[in-house]
Every structure is written in structure tokens, then in C-alpha cells.
């Protein structure tokens, strides 16, 4: 579903990604872990077609980036730590707006279904700026799944959420992943990642330093694996 080969990204003279090789099979939920500044967000922005690779090949959902970016965007849902929502529009209006940007048919039914899924049906006519951080983040997920994408990218979705909101987000994320979607999520919350992901990749100093599935970990816990990967 996602194929990345020898990906480099430079900002001027600074090289953020130095030859990332990364591959995700359909239906996998990959947690991309790593310290701040390791290039997680940059990497996700490239997958999202928001940033151009300096060098290397990137294929998402079978289409090349940046060449076929419009086709990729059609099949891609993105949730970042910013909600990407308009505060002066209602929940419903925000979804209507994005639905029109994606040129979706039968928009009203789709919006109702999505609001139901993220548990905001009762608040559909309220302005987004009156929403709590957690509700905004759930609506942001609703926005990201509106066009029923095959691939989803989550960039630190838990930033700024309290315990309750995080647990509700957990439920929604599991729901999203259960629909057979391919998910890549960056996080530095190891416990959450361990709970959700089917694979853990560790990005350090611009490369994938280690990769493991829960079964591979055996007796070592994720934290030990993470520390070991960073040390090497």
C-alpha cells in the first residue's frame, strides 16, 4: 500500500531524511516512533503529498509521488495534531466543505454516518470553536475518513488530549483501522502505540533504525526495544 525507497529530504543544507526504506502492506497499522526531530512529521508530510521528496521513490496506494499526487490525495486521509477545521463553521458545515472539496456524491448521508461514527451527532449544528480539544480531534478524524480513504496518516493525534479524550480517540481509531484501512501513525506515546499498532518502526536520525511486530518482541517490551534501537 505504501512503498518508499531510498527517500531523502533536505531543507536547504539540512538533511532530515537520509535514505528511508519503508513498506506497508494493506491493512497494517504501523506506529512510527522516534524522538523529536527524527523526521517523523517530515516523513508523514511527504506521504501526504504536502512535501516533495528531494530524492527517492514514494508510492502510496499504487500511485507515485509527487507525480500523481491528485490520485494519491483522493485515497488518503490525514489527521494531524492540528484539527484542520474552521472554528466559525459548525461540525456539519466543516464536513460539507471538505465533502465538496473531494467532490463526494450523496454528501448528506455520508456526513450523518461519519458524525455517528465519531459520536458527534448531537453536536452537528454547533460551532467547532465551542468544541473541546477532544471533540475537535474526533471531528478531525471524521473529516479524514469522509471520502472513505484506503490509507490513513495520523501525526501525533493525541497531542493535547486529556485521559478521557484519549480513550475516546482510541475507540475511534480502532474503528477506523478495523475497516481494513492501512494506517501509519507517528507518536511518542509508546503505550498507545503498543495498544493499537500491528508493527512498530523506529525512525532515528533520518532512517528507519529498527522494525518489529508484537510477536518479534518476545519477552522484551516495546520501551526496551525502542531504547535499544535508538542506541545502536
Amino acid at each position: 500500500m505504501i512503498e518508499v525507497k531510498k527517500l531523502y529530504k533536505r531543507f536547504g543544507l539540512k538533511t532530515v531524511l537520509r535514505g528511508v526504506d519503508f513498506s506497508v502492506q494493506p491493512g497494517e497499522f504501523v506506529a512510527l516512533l522516534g524522538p523529536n526531530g527524527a523526521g517523523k512529521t517530515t516523513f508523514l508530510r511527504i506521504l501526504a503529498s504536502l512535501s516533495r521528496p528531494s530524492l527517492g521513490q514514494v508510492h502510496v496506494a499504487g500511485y507515485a509521488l509527487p507525480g500523481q499526487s491528485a490520485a494519491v490525495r483522493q485515497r488518503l486521509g490525514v489527521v494531524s495534531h492540528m484539527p484542520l477545521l474552521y472554528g466559525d463553521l459548525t461540525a456539519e458545515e466543516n464536513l460539507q466543505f471538505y465533502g465538496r472539496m473531494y467532490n463526494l456524491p450523496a454528501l448528506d448521508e455520508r456526513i450523518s454516518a461519519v458524525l455517528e461514527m465519531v459520536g458527534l451527532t448531537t453536536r452537528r449544528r454547533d460551532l467547532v470553536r465551542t468544541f473541546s480539544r477532544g471533540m475537535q480531534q474526533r471531528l478531525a478524524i471524521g473529516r479524514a475518513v469522509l471520502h472513505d480513504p484506503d490509507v490513513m496518516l495520523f501525526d501525533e493525534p493525541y497531542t493535547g488530549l486529556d485521559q478521557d479524550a484519549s480513550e475516546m480517540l482510541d475507540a475511534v481509531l480502532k474503528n477506523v483501522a478495523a475497516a481494513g484501512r492501512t494506517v501509519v501513525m507517528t507518536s511518542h506515546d509508546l503505550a498507545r502505540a503498543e495498544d493499537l499498532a500491528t508493527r512498530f518502526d523506529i525512525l532515528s536520525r533520518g532512517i528507519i533504525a529498527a522494525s518489529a511486530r508484537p510477536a518479534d518482541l518476545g519477552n522484551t517490551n516495546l520501551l526496551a526495544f525502542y531504547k535499544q534501537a535508538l542506541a545502536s
Partner: protein
Amino acid sequence: MNPTPDSPRPSSYLRATLAVAWKDLAAELRSRELLSAMLVFSTLVILIFYFALELDVKARNGITAGALWVTFAFAGTLGLNRSMAIEKDRGCLDGLLLAPVDRSAIYFGKALSNLAFMLIVEIIVLPLYSVMYNINLFNPGLLAVTLLGSIGYTAVGTLLATMSVQTRTRDVLLPILLFPVVIPVLVAAVKASSGYLTGADINEITPWINILIVYNIIFIAVAFMVFDFVVEE
């Protein structure tokens, strides 16, 4: 400039353009923060002109067109800044860029709503100015010039605001970037407006109208071509 404008349906470009403009107008009609700021500012400028230039009846006729366009230009930067800041601050610009449409559709949508805001302000400021200075500004020629000038101003302004909002200096930068390149619009609009107000011969006004039209065509075309470069990373 998008390498593959393989839109799923032919109408998606227009639909996206209108969606962006609709979204801005809907949000603005609810909060009214952008329009009220522009209007209060415009009124203040008009008041200041009275004291600064001692606009007696004789001076008024010669200076009205200039005073109006200075007001529009300054109020315009307020609106442009605010309209792009809304996109940038909450990360919404990324949301727009993630949509599977050619990026120029986003530009045209933003330019359309910015133009609408500017026209709304002008529709309110013109009668206000008429009343305060006892000048009749209801002149079809003047209104046409106002529309033409506002199109050129917002076409370039939207592009430059998209750039300035991504810099460290942000709001301070927009007027500095915008005014030197929008001078042809301001000169032509002031001259043509003043021509209509003083009842000048149409042959004196035509060259200015031509400049406005040429400017609009050139800069809308250029903005269409370069907008991708302003939002990509």
C-alpha cells in the same frame, strides 16, 4: 501546474473553487470579525482624511477618488491578512492542500471570497463617504472602475498574502510586498474614478480602464501559473 490534474469528475474544479469561497463567506457572516474590522478601519481613515486634508468643498472634488482608493487599499490589506491567517493558524491550509483538486482552485476560491469582502466594504463605504462629504458617488462608471480595481487588487493580494503568511514577519510584510506591485491598479483606478466624478471626456478615461483590464488579465494568469510554487514544500 499540477502534473496530474486527473480530477475524478469534470465539475470538481469549479465545485472546489466555489466551496472555498462559500466556506469563507459562511464563516464570515457568522463571526463578522473581518468585515467589521475593515469597516471600522475604513470609517476611521475617512474621518482622518477630513482633519488631515481639511476637506472643504473645493478640495473635496479633486481628492475624493484618491481618498477612496487609499481607504480601500489599506482596508484591503487588513482583510487579506486575516483571511489567510485563518487558514494558516489552525493548519487549515494543509487541509485545503490535501484535497484532490488542482491547487489553483484554492487560489481562485480565496481570491473570490477576498473580492467579495472588499466589494462589501466598498458598497458600504461609498454611500458613507457620499453622506459625510455631501458628494454624489452613485455613478455607474465609478462603480465599474471600483469593481475592476478591486479585482486586480485582490488577484495579486491573495497570492502575496499566501506568501507573507508563511514568513516570520507575517502581517507586517503584506502591505510592503503588495503596494509596490499594485501601483498600476491604484494609479489607473484613481485616475479613472476621478475622471468619472469630474465628468471628464471618455477619451481621457479609456486609457486607464485599458490599463486596469490588461493588469487584471496578466496578473490573474500569472497567479494561476505560480500559485503552486507558493504553497508547495
